[in-house]
């Protein structure tokens, strides 16, 4: 019995432990999101449906190519905002997060898993959009361009996971998807994710650079040469990194304040 007791003493957790926890947590987070039809059908379904309506009807035009890039971004932003924003808020309200926090699972594993799982959902969206674009909308692109689009879309997981995290802390528990849509939909519209930005009212165009989605979309659109001529890609990257730091900082602040009173 003595050996059994010894084996149960607390002991330092190694790298291999952390790698395994992150892998397992990510795997089940993805399964959970994918099987939750309310989530997967809307987060994957909306960009795909919009592309069918607005992209396929404009087949063999520049417009079909533009929307392929912008709806990929739209899909990633949606997955992150709903996956983390609504997901964490709900798990907190239901006590499930507390049970996980009482386990040795580190907090960063939880956040990484959620971010990667949302990126995986977005990857499905991009794959469907690419398939539709290439086969039915007459979009042409090189393999490199396709890979670039996937890479930039997935890079958006980080800034918008940070935004989702912040939303999860300020969202009233069980507020549901409605509150997130109030942020998600106008922000997407004003950043040119639904239609080219120069078709939007002037005041919206001037507001757009204040939104992270604008810089994100510009990076994706640049692959096909549709970025605003005045913009510099380096600046867009910097803006996205800046937004990420800002959002994470704000999330940290709200979180530590809520911990102090909880």
């Amino acid at each position, binding site marked *: 019995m003595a050996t059994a007791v010894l084996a149960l003493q607390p002991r330092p*957790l190694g790298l291999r432990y952390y790698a395994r926890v992150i892998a*397992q947590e990510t795997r089940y987070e993805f399964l959970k999101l994918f099987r*939750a039809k309310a989530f997967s059908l809307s987060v994957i379904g909306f960009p795909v449906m919009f592309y069918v309506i607005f992209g396929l009807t404009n087949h063999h035009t520049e417009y079909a190519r533009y929307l392929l890039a912008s709806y990929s971004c739209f899909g990633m932003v949606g997955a992150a905002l709903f996956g983390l924003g609504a997901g964490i808020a709900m798990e907190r309200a239901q*006590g499930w997060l507390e049970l996980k926090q*009482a*386990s*040795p699972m580190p907090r960063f594993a939880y956040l990484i898993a959620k971010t990667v799982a949302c990126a995986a959902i977005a990857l499905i969206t991009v794959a469907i959009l690419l398939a539709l674009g290439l086969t039915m909308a007459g979009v042409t692109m090189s393999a490199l361009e396709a890979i670039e689009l996937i890479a930039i879309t997935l890079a958006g997981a980080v800034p918008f996971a940070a935004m989702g995290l912040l939303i999860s802390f300020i969202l009233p528990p069980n507020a549901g998807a409605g509150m997130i849509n109030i942020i998600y939909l106008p922000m997407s519209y004003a950043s040119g994710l639904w239609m080219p930005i120069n078709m939007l009212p002037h005041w919206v165009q001037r507001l757009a650079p204040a939104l992270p989605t604008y810089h994100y979309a510009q990076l994706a659109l640049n692959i096909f040469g549709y970025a605003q001529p005045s913009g510099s890609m380096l600046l867009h990257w910097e803006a996205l990194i800046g937004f990420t730091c800002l959002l994470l900082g704000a999330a940290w602040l709200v979180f530590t304040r809520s911990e102090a009173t*909880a």
Partner: protein
Amino acid sequence: MAATAFASGFQVESLTPSSTPLAGQPIAQLQSVTRRYGRVTALDNLNLSLYPGEVVALLGPNGAGKTTAVRLLLGLIAPTSGTVCVMKGDPRDSETRTVIGAMLQVTRVPEALRVREHIDLFRSYYPNPLPAAEIVRIARLEGLENTLFGKLSGGQKQRVLFGLALAGNPRLVFLDEPTVGMDIESRRALWEQIRALAAQGKTILLTTHYLEEADTLASRIVVIGKGKILAEGTPTQIKHRVAGRRIRCITSLDPEFIRSLPSVLSVEQDRDAIAIIATETEVVVQALLRCDPTLRGLEVSAPALEDAFLALTNADAN
């Protein structure tokens, strides 16, 4: 079990095994812990030690500080002052938490995962988990492994949460209202498992509103109120804190007359019978039988844990 004894043989309570394995080093301790939420003091300079192999029931009215004590021991919050210590470590460290398992009140668990998947996930959180088949056996989940969590009944969900608490083969297990929503059979089966865990040397801290549960399971009961310990001891010791015994009988005597008998503390109508609490039970019973030869259905019982609990917490409130 409430010690129900009939008039023919007055008994002293000796029903609960009063084994108190307080030997050795405590596995977890709250040392003069105070925790405030703003201006509210949830725990007030509280000392609590948990030892290997004991089942401790933490009882108290809502808002007494039970949840705060549990959350401190789980490392979910930090104390305002004082020390929280589990296996000589701080439960706020992941390493320390590898020896802790918890069953908390969760209103909803991700429903799109299967029982098997939930178990697999929680096992991966711990460096030395129990085998999945062992968890399934202990939590009586055979045949439910491939069921989605959302499709389980309330009692089955509680059993999964119990299984998850044991996934890491913990030495210290927290059970917060473990049998809520369970039928009697499941409840008794879970009690058996809890006893088996204690027999293996694991420490169990139980919070429950079912005082019967605390009475049958606990080797030690700690009653807290307003952040302080009001009473501590074996269930028998706690019950002995209450003066008097309960006499119940069907009689035509006037309640006012009964109230005038020596040592009677209270008289209450209880459906068709009368319930009397008195300290010198024998004297009262003799007087009743003398005055009312038609008296029937006589029962004398020791105070239940519930009576002791109410007396203790009411005394504190006044």
